[in-house]
Structures are given as structure tokens and as C-alpha cells.
């Protein structure tokens, strides 16, 4: 029986790949073929759909918009969370436990609850339809998450490291940047990965907070599906392209992911 255990993950991975394969398959077909005949692979292989996306500015601007707010969000979340996580892992202060729990409750808030008030808040702040609005709004769940993960990594670093550095005459900012941050580099990588991931996949808030100028790629897809009939090939190509940034990021952090999870965070 032991010999066949590899079958379980193999079948599972096949199951994961099937819908992705189907999406790729559709993206290389012509609309006629999609609607006309049922084929397991493209008979008339075409790049038409991809060319359409790369030559239409509303499409590729969608990608730029998405990447812009995801990057801004990751930078804000990680840099704000670094000192906070340090404080939680090293010091006791008035209300620290309550504050930590309150931060985590924001991870539990359904985005649907916040969609409308967010729209009003960011309109009032004159930020509506900017990547910054989406980046800040995604901070609602990403900043608490970043604090949570980083605090886990920082608690694993012995306090003696801090003390030795002070004895050696390091000031706090210099110690933090030159010694402490390199020590928890893997943790910062894992944190950035999860911030990237949750900001990249979220759509409800991103859609609510943008109209034209900062519209994310995912929202443009929804529009295509509803207005211009049913351009499945185009939709499939756009969808396939949204998988790429995630795949690249996973490849780079693959060795850190398991470690980050092992600390019991996320």
C-alpha cells in the first residue's frame, strides 16, 4: 500500500491543473471554435486574444493599475508593520493584548460590510479612483496580517541580539536596519508574499474604489463579460495572464512559504 501513496498528491495536482489547462486552451482558440465545436486542444492555434489585450490600452492599463496598487500596498503594509511587530514581540505596554486582538478582528471583517462606507470615505478624502485608495483600503486586512506574521518571526530571534548591538554602540535605527532586518529577511519575504497575494486576489474593494483611471484588470474582465456579448477567448486570455505574477512570486518564495506556515501564522 505504501508504494501507491504518491498517487494521492498526483491526482490532486491533476485536479488542480485541469481548470487552468481549460482556461489556457480557451485562450488560444478563436471565438468560432469555442462556440462551434468541442475540442480538447485548439485546432486553429491563435494568439489573437493575447494580441488584442496587448494592443488595447484599457486592457494593459488594467494590469499596470493592479500591479501598482498591489506594490504600494505591500510596501505600506510591511514598512508600517515592522516597528509595530517589533514592539509586540519585545515590549509589554498598556493595552498591548487588546490592541493585538483588535487588529486581528479587522482580518475577520467581511469586505462586503465595508464596501459602501469605503466608497464614501475615499470619495470624501478625494482619493477615489486612485491606486493609493485601493492600496490603503487593502491595508485593512493586510496590515494586521503583516503584524501577525512578522511578530512570529521576530519572537524567534533571541533578545541577546538586541542587547549585544547596543553594547557595541549601535543606535536603535541603525541596529534595526543593519542587523535586525537582515536577520529576519525570510520573515519579511514571507510577509511581503502574503500581502502581495491578498491584495492581488481581492476584487470587491478594488472595484468599488475605482471607476476609470485606476480600474484593476480583474474588474475590466467583468465588464467584458457583460457588455460585449461573451468574448470567452479574450476573457480566458486575460485570466491566464493574471496567473503569471502569482506564479513568479510563488517560484521565488517556495522555500520560505513552508517555513512561514510552520510558525503557525497567516
Amino acid at each position, binding site marked *: 500500500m505504501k508504494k501507491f501513496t*504518491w498517487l*494521492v498528491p498526483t491526482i490532486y*495536482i491533476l485536479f*488542480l491543473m*485541469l481548470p*487552468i489547462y*481549460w*482556461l489556457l486552451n480557451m485562450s488560444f482558440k478563436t471565438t468560432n471554435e469555442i*462556440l462551434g465545436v*468541442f475540442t480538447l486542444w485548439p485546432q486553429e492555434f491563435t494568439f489573437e486574444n493575447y494580441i488584442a489585450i496587448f494592443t488595447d490600452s484599457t486592457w494593459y492599463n488594467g494590469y499596470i493599475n493592479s500591479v501598482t496598487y498591489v506594490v504600494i500596498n505591500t510596501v505600506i503594509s510591511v514598512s*508600517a508593520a515592522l*516597528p*509595530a511587530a517589533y*514592539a509586540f*514581540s*519585545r*515590549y*509589554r*505596554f498598556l493595552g498591548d493584548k487588546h490592541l493585538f486582538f483588535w*487588529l486581528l*478582528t*479587522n482580518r*475577520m*471583517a*467581511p469586505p*462586503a*460590510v465595508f*464596501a*459602501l462606507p469605503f466608497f464614501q*470615505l475615499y470619495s470624501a478624502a478625494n482619493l477615489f479612483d486612485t491606486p493609493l485608495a485601493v492600496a*490603503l483600503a487593502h*491595508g*485593512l486586512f493586510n*496590515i494586521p496580517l503583516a503584524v501577525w506574521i512578522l511578530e512570529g518571526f521576530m519572537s524567534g530571534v533571541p*533578545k541577546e541580539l538586541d542587547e549585544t548591538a547596543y553594547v557595541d554602540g549601535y543606535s536603535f535605527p541603525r541596529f534595526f536596519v543593519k542587523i535586525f532586518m537582515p536577520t529576519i529577511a525570510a520573515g519579511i519575504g514571507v510577509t511581503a508574499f502574503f500581502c502581495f*497575494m491578498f491584495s*492581488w486576489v*481581492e*476584487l*470587491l474593494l478594488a472595484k468599488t474604489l475605482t471607476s476609470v483611471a485606476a480600474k484593476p*484588470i*480583474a*474588474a475590466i*474582465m*467583468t465588464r467584458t463579460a457583460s457588455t460585449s456579448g461573451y468574448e*470567452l477567448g479574450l*476573457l*480566458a486570455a486575460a*485570466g491566464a495572464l*493574471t*496567473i503569471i505574477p*502569482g506564479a513568479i512570486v*510563488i*517560484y521565488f518564495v*517556495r522555500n520560505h*512559504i513552508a517555513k512561514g*506556515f*510552520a510558525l*503557525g501564522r*497567516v
Partner: protein
Amino acid sequence: MAVKSNNQKAWLFVLPVVLLVAFNALIPLMTVVNYSVQETFGNNVFFWEGVKWFEDVLHSERFHASLLRQLSFTGIILLIEVPLGVAIALTMPKKGFWVSVCLVLMALPLLIPWNVVGAMWNIFALPEIGLLGRMINGLGIDYNFTQNPTAAWFTTILMDVWHWTSLVVLLAYAGLRSIPDAYFQAAKIDGAGTWAVFRYIQLPKMKRVLTIAILLRFMDSFMIYTEPFVLTGGGPGNTTTFLSIDLVKIALGQFDLGPAAAMSLIYFLIVLLMCWVFYTLMMKNEDQ
């Protein structure tokens, strides 16, 4: 864990996070509370309504139905994803090249934007042009998720299993990897079988990460919106209208601010309460 020292200046370190999250959390939450106790006929004229909206929501059959659907959905996916995730983590390779391959391929669904997941499954399951739809119909079963509620539920659940089981796998796998080899050698000497090793070594060691997996899957599936909305649009009829879909319909579709706000607060409180209960129960078990 290092001993922590008292230091009130630590508040300065926390301040940026508090300000950023408070801006995002407190102001919108106050807006919601504000709407939930008032009635408006437009033009920014508001009338005090007290707890009327809360009573309405709590007594509305529509809310009961969405809540029931939500609870069933979350219950079903937890029952499938957690055991399946553990089983896959147990059978995954332990070292070498294939570990990376497994991790990268399994993590892939987690990084696909949620509406793309919905759109992908829509294309995959359509009865005429989708691979899944063709296969099931080919077996002689009449399958059309846009018309048949059972098929719609089946597809939504299969999609969620596809999307999120990997999270349980990754967590359980990380938990398994942290068990020292000495434990397994000791078990071998004692003549323990596969089941005994699982029940008395692996399962207790995975408890912490599984708690987190269940908690995360509970929270996220309870808030699910985009994927089923893109896949089925909440239909056929209202059969796959979960809480978030219903809420967005009321708030942004019908613009009934009062009832939507009251429902939002009740919804948020349910999630908080359930998480708190889960968390306390599991921590209690851990102490014993």
C-alpha cells in the same frame, strides 16, 4: 520566548499601524452604525429609527435563508477540505525535488484573483463548452449549473475545494515537517502501525496549525463573495446567494442603507463571535 520588558514608548512603534487601520476600520464602522439606526429618503435627510432595522433583519426570512445557506456552505467545505488537506499532506514527498514541484503547483490556485477563479470555473463547467460540464453530461447525468440548484451547489463547492484545499495542505505539511525524526523511530521500536502513528504523534503535533487552518477557512468561506457571484450570480433563483452576495444586493443594488447597515453589523458580530468561540474551545483543549 524572550522575557518582555515594560516600555510605554512602544506605543510610538505601533502608532503608524494604529492610525492606518483605524482610518480604514473605525470611520467606516461608525458610518455603518450611523446608517443602521436611521432612515433616509435621500438628500442627506435622516430620521432616527432606533433598533427597527435590527429587528427587521433578525425577523426577515430572506436573512434567515441566506444565513442558513451560508452555514451549510461553510460546514460542507470545512468537512471536505480539512480531512482532504490532511490526507494530501500525509502522502506528500518528504524531501527532494518533488517537494518544490508539489508546493509550487499546489499554491497556484491561491494566487489567482478571485473573479478569475469564478470565470475559470464558469468556462470549465459550462454544459456545452466546458470540460467538466461535457464529462458529467457524458456520464448520462443531466448537469447544468445555471439552471439546476443541486448542480449549482455541487459546482460552487467543488470550486471552493479546488481553490482552498491547498491552504490546508500547506499548513498541515508545515506542521508535519516540524516533528523530529526521533518520534517516528520511537514509534517503530514500539511497533506502532500507520494509524497509531497518525493518531498519537502526527495529529496532536498538527493541532496548532490545523486550528489556524480551520479558523482561516471558516472566516474566509463565511465572507465568500466574488467566486460564487461570478460563477452563478447567486442563482439559479437565490439558491447560491450567500450572506455577502445578499448584503451587496441590498446595499449597492437596492441602496437600502438602513437595513444593509444593520445586516452588516449582525453579520460582522456573527463572524467575530464564532471565531472567538472556536478559538477559546481549541485553546482550552490545548491546555488540557
